């Protein structure tokens, strides 16, 4: 086995060795410096997660999927801006809050690729004991992963929103309106990022097998969109309008959109009708909070049970 020296071999010439220790050539240097606390640890893990989602620090092939999807997501804003210029309309054909909903397939694919990378690998290879034997708790780990994925998603969505703004300004649309819309778009992007991150990580954490997490997330989100549409159509066909206003919310993209409509007062994507009034807004907010909190709890529980230590 070349390159593996037996323990106790003399230091190769040219290696200066640790300073000041004359008795042992290979002295083990003790560390008396600062040991940073949980905040640093969580931050480190978060940064590591975000970098991994974008393929940084990983081989080239893992950069393809995320960046191709990002490219697809960032291309239309410029096209939209162009269409505004050409049609001389007074507003963007697709509002800031409607954009993620319209591009939901691409966003779903991105989450489906990123979430399993964040958690499935650690579970599949039993790495958790190495984390848990360190000064961090399971909750820290979950928090770092959720925050990391949310941050990465938000970065992508926010970039798209900002490109929309740039396009709109270049197309000479009124600045005030656009800035307001853009701000609203950022807020919805943030909420959507957290929601999708939690959902994606929960699914990924229960499907550690290779490829299964990706498939499960894509399938789940696509099927639920289709089912929500169908159920809404059925309910409104039969005249259950109140129910028909709640059913779209089964789809996470629509849940966030509905909140945006109620809270920010923007127009709904695709002209959907959502639960009306303050009561409706409260119900929507409650649903959102419940899903996020429930997802986090499930994640912590998953690591408590199957963490390996």
């Amino acid at each position, binding site marked *: 086995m070349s*390159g593996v020296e037996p*323990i106790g071999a003399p230091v190769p010439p040219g290696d200066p060795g640790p300073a000041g220790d004359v008795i042992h050539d290979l002295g083990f240097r003790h560390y008396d410096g600062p040991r940073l606390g949980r905040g640093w640890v969580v931050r480190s893990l978060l940064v590591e997660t975000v970098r991994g989602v974008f393929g940084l620090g990983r081989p080239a092939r893992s950069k393809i999927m995320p960046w191709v999807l990002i490219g697809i997501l960032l291309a239309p804003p410029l096209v939209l801006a162009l269409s505004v210029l050409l049609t001389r309309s007074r507003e963007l054909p697709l509002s800031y809050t409607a954009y993620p909903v319209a591009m939901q397939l691409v966003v779903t694919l991105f989450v489906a690729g990123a979430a399993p990378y964040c958690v499935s690998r650690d579970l599949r*290879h039993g790495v958790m004991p190495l984390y848990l034997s360190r000064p*961090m708790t399971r909750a820290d780990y979950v928090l770092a992963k959720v925050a990391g994925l949310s941050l990465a998603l938000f970065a992508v969505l926010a970039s798209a929103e900002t490109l929309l703004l740039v396009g709109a300004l270049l197309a000479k649309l009124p600045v005030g309106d656009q800035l307001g819309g853009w701000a609203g778009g950022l807020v919805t992007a943030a909420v959507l990022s957290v929601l999708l991150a939690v959902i994606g990580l929960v699914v990924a954490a229960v499907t550690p097998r290779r490829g299964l997490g990706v498939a499960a997330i894509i399938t789940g989100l696509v099927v639920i969109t289709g089912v929500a549409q169908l159920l809404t159509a059925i309910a409104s066909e039969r005249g259950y309008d109140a129910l028909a206003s709640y059913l779209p919310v089964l789809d996470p993209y629509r849940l966030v959109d509905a909140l945006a409509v109620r809270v920010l007062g923007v127009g709904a994507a695709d002209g959907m009708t959502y639960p009306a009034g303050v009561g409706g807004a409260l119900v929507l907010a409650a649903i959102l909070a419940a899903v996020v909190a429930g997802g986090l709890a499930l994640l912590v529980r998953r690591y408590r049970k199957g963490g390996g230590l």
Partner: protein
Amino acid sequence: MQTTGREPAAAQAVATHELTRTFGPVTALSRLDVTMPRGVVGLVGANGAGKSTLIKILLGLLRPTSGRAEVLGLDCGTDGPAIRRLVGYMPESECLPPDVSATELVVHLARMSGLPAEVARERTADTLRHVGLHEERYRPIGGYSTGMKQRVKLAQALVHDPRLVLLDEPTNGLDPAGRDEMLGLIQRISTDFGISVLVTSHLLGELERIADHLVVIDGGVLQRSTSTADATRLSGVILVEVTDRADELVARLRAIGARVAEGGGQSFTVEPTDDAVLDAVQGGAADLGVGLVRMQRRRHHLTEMFREQEVTDVRR
């Protein structure tokens, strides 16, 4: 929350007091009372003996049902994170992701232990050198041999300069040469690096070589806690082998009241209660005209502890 400098040294590495842990009807640890000194401590126990439960409690990841446990003077129930800052753990199981290199993994884990970024990188390079990983540290772990993987696991346990390392079956899956190297490394960790070690193993022979102290656990109950020196000290027995007429020599020795146990063939053991017995052996052999092949003091072996246990078990 930062700490600088080393905590005051605790006399004991690990101390438990009436430590009990139950999982419903199953008792994993039962009133375990043991102190493990600094140095190399061997923990012997079959699977299911409570070993992993004990490790989880020592790492502060599991609360005892009753009793206390202390690691390096810190209470396991309340100071878990502080303990994990000072302790390194080398798992027995497969725990390495195959698509990163050793350097990347250990740097990442060093940061997870609270080391600042630059320090993590430096100490990783040092530690990997100490465990004997050189150019291969830049290749993905998936292509490593078992020996190299064990070294990576050890490196991540050492990189943050712990006060105590818990090594779970460190020689698992290694060939004899690898075993020797790992045992040598463990000894160096204790003597050269000044880090206390708690090693678990199924192989008593290994522990005999490197452990200063031994703890035996079975069924969650402490069986033995003894220093290796005591357990393997020169036994008070002499092995005698002659060329012929051993039975007559035995009879003579018994006549003068010495305790003799026959060993089969031309050898037997005798307890040298005083010099008269030794003289009697030599004189008797000369009288009988037989050659004295050997007179040898025997050492105890650790396996005797288990044979004793077996015998008492059988008698019960």
